[in-house]
């Protein structure tokens, strides 16, 4: 059942993005930025936790989860360290994603060439 929920959640987020992309003048860059902010807002309102429990790990696949994780890490940092924690903890959970994206991209760039 978790497969169905995950597929529906991921599919619907992508569908929403595609509808916005096709019917407005916004580019993919605009849409991903908007979705990250929307994810942070949903997390702020406490809605994203329902998605996570409903769709399992698939809820952390769309880019909206990036905003969710950033916001949660920020709050967690405040709870443990106070105001300093807002800054020291902000990137803690998303660090794996950002670091791996940079490192894999660099390694791939060393071995591959751009196709024209």
């Amino acid at each position, binding site marked *: 059942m978790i*497969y169905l929920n*995950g*597929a*529906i*959640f*991921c*599919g*619907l*987020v*992508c*569908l929403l*993005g*595609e*509808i916005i*992309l*096709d*019917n407005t003048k916004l580019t*993919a*860059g605009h*849409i*991903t*930025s908007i979705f*990250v*902010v929307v994810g*942070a*807002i949903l*997390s*702020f309102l406490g809605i994203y936790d329902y998605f996570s429990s409903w*769709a*399992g*790990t*698939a809820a*952390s*696949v*769309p*880019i909206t989860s*990036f*905003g969710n994780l*950033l*916001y949660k890490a*920020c*709050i967690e940092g*405040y709870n443990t360290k106070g105001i300093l924690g*807002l800054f020291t903890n*902000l990137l803690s959970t998303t660090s*794996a*994603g*950002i670091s*791996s*994206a*940079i490192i*894999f*991209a*660099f390694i*791939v*760039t060393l071995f*591959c*060439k*751009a*196709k024209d």
Partner: protein
Amino acid sequence: MNIEEYKLLVKKYTPKEDRIKNALMAFITGAAIGILSILIFQILQSYNINDKDANIWTIMILILMSSVATGLGFFDEWVSKVRCGLIIPITGFAHSITSSALDYKKDGLITGLGANVFKLAGSVLLYGIVSSFILAVVEVLIHV
């Protein structure tokens, strides 16, 4: 030819996109990535990795697959076909970093690759960090 006629002419020759087909393709691809992520997650779980770590590993494996596929060259074609189906999941983030790194490699390691690697992904990072920081401050202020 006045402006109105010109606009009509442009409208006539602008290629029409099948929006329903696009939306359907995006939904199917997104759903497939969702299923793939849960599949990877459950395989990792069967090796006794706890949920939180398995979640991070899943995301990293998706990023690795997307980066390698971009480097090999066929991912760009897929992205131009299904668009948001691959851009909205974390694969799009990895794709944007890898493709800008590849594109600007020819301009040198510092002024090319180094300066441009976040050309597309930078906006996601900037607005994600700024918005979540502001929201966290608001949340903190509400509960003071």
